[in-house]
């Protein structure tokens, strides 16, 4: 196993100020190795997204230690190198694309910001990579289906040729058939580019499909860590995890 590309120690994230302060994440430790796909599950509000956003620099108030490829992070500022190395895909494909920007513009801006050259050619390639033909290049988001939007979002994340992708429930807003397509795409991309994933989902089956290891979160902390084999077999030391597994397979009483 290579050195961890991402390591998080005693991460605490909060929102607001004392009387209304919400402690969303209370001491999380994580390590993700290069090339690995790591899952984060838990019920709604358990702090999964918040962990990702803190890493990405989208939650200003946090304490603890986050290191990405040896670079120690602080506050909400992130270096250009970080942006090149780490990208994120959001849960809601309807909210993650600017409604007035064409696919072309989204990708072109990203490429410019990442300091790439030869932008036209790269856009075409990116679109091919995520399985959207050139025909989609000049469309606006409202001319795309949810699955197509999520592909654009993935293309945007890939534009800077990152090493680590933070995936925040990338398929939960999609139909099962579309979900399958996106999951396949993610699998292929990881294989082709040697990407590392940190993926959040509340769907154990999805995590099981894509990840090798996972951690279970509850109320802002990690309550369990296991690998996929254990998950499949329902082997877990934690009651909560077993409860989650059971509940995900609804059986009529």
């Amino acid at each position, binding site marked *: 196993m290579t050195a961890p590309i991402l390591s998080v120690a005693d991460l605490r994230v909060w929102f607001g100020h004392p009387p209304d302060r919400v402690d969303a994440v209370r001491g999380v430790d994580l390590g993700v190795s290069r090339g690995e796909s790591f899952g984060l599950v838990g019920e709604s509000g358990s702090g999964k997204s918040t962990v990702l956003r803190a890493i*990405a620099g989208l939650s200003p108030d946090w304490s603890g230690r986050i290191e990405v490829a040896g670079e120690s992070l602080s506050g909400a500022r992130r270096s250009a190198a970080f942006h090149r190395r780490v990208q994120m895909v959001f849960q809601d494909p309807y909210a993650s*694309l600017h409604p007035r920007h*064409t696919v072309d513009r989204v990708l072109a801006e990203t490429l410019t910001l990442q300091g790439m050259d030869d932008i036209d050619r790269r856009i075409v390639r990116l679109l091919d990579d995520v399985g959207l033909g050139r*025909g989609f290049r000049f469309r606006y988001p409202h*001319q795309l289906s949810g699955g197509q939007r999520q592909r654009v979002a993935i293309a945007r994340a890939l534009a800077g040729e990152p090493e680590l992708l933070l995936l925040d429930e990338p398929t939960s807003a999609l139909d099962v058939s579309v979900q399958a397509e996106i999951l396949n795409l993610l699998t292929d991309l990881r294989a082709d580019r040697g990407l590392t994933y940190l993926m959040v989902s509340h769907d154990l089956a999805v995590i099981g499909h894509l990840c090798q290891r996972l951690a279970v979160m509850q109320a802002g902390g990690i309550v369990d860590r296991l690998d996929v084999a254990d998950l499949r077999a329902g082997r877990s030391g934690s009651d909560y995890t077993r409860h989650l597994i059971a509940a995900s397979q609804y059986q009529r009483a």
Partner: protein
Amino acid sequence: MSDVSLRDWLLTDAPQTRRQARLGAFYQGWLVFRSNHLALLGLVILVLLVGTAIFAPWIAPQSPFAQDLADRLQPPSAEHWLGTDALGRDILSRLIWGSRITLFIVGTVALISPLIGLLIGTVAGFAGGWVDQVLMRITDIFLAFPKLILALAFVAALGPSVTNAVLALALTGWPPYARLARAETLTIRNADFIAAARMQGASAPRLLILHIWPLCLSSLIVRVALDMAGIILSAAGLGFLGLGAQPPAPEWGAMISDGRTYILDHWWVAAMPGIAIFLVSLAFNFLGDGLRDVLDPKGAGE
């Protein structure tokens, strides 16, 4: 390209070029807009207004300045379609020439106020914290300040002229836009697509100008169109107090204010410019309503 295929080309789901995408988006908007007949009517009136302003020297039957005291206060007739004013000038010709001033007023105010508002509102909303506090206090002050006083003070300080009146209106009109833009920014700034752009390393000014402004702009445009009547009438109000256009400029508001002495007996002197203002503001209102359908997804039909 035949008509049918042009339409298809515009409406296609898969535009081939940037230009096609842009034109297509425009055309879609146009189709929505077109289905609102009143909005269309508003547009037609405004196009006519612009045409009138451009071609004023050729359209106007007489000089807007030529006086004839013997021929004053004539009711509408074949010779003077809209009658003459207190100095015997042809009202129609003055209205036609005045459209230039009206357009100037409307154009300038509609450009400056929302821009100031946009800048202040989005910066406040986006930056948050003390910047927001300070900017919003300033906005509050300007909002709480009697607007006419502020405008009067500006005009009085700068000297009465249309340009200054317009400037005054623009400088006093921005607070509501700032509030609107701020509210809009607050809803946008935490959107995922902003976060995504941040993740690409986009700087704050870039986010503000390229990502947030275009989204605030639509609701601002709608609002401006609806406020347009107010702008013309405020300019007329300043004119009424003698602080707008300088004589003999045929500014519509000033014309009404000239005619107010004669309202009871020579109704056309005030009514004609009044009707002109009414039509134009009505047109802007209709247009604003139509634009709302196109630009503002809220409130648009299900």
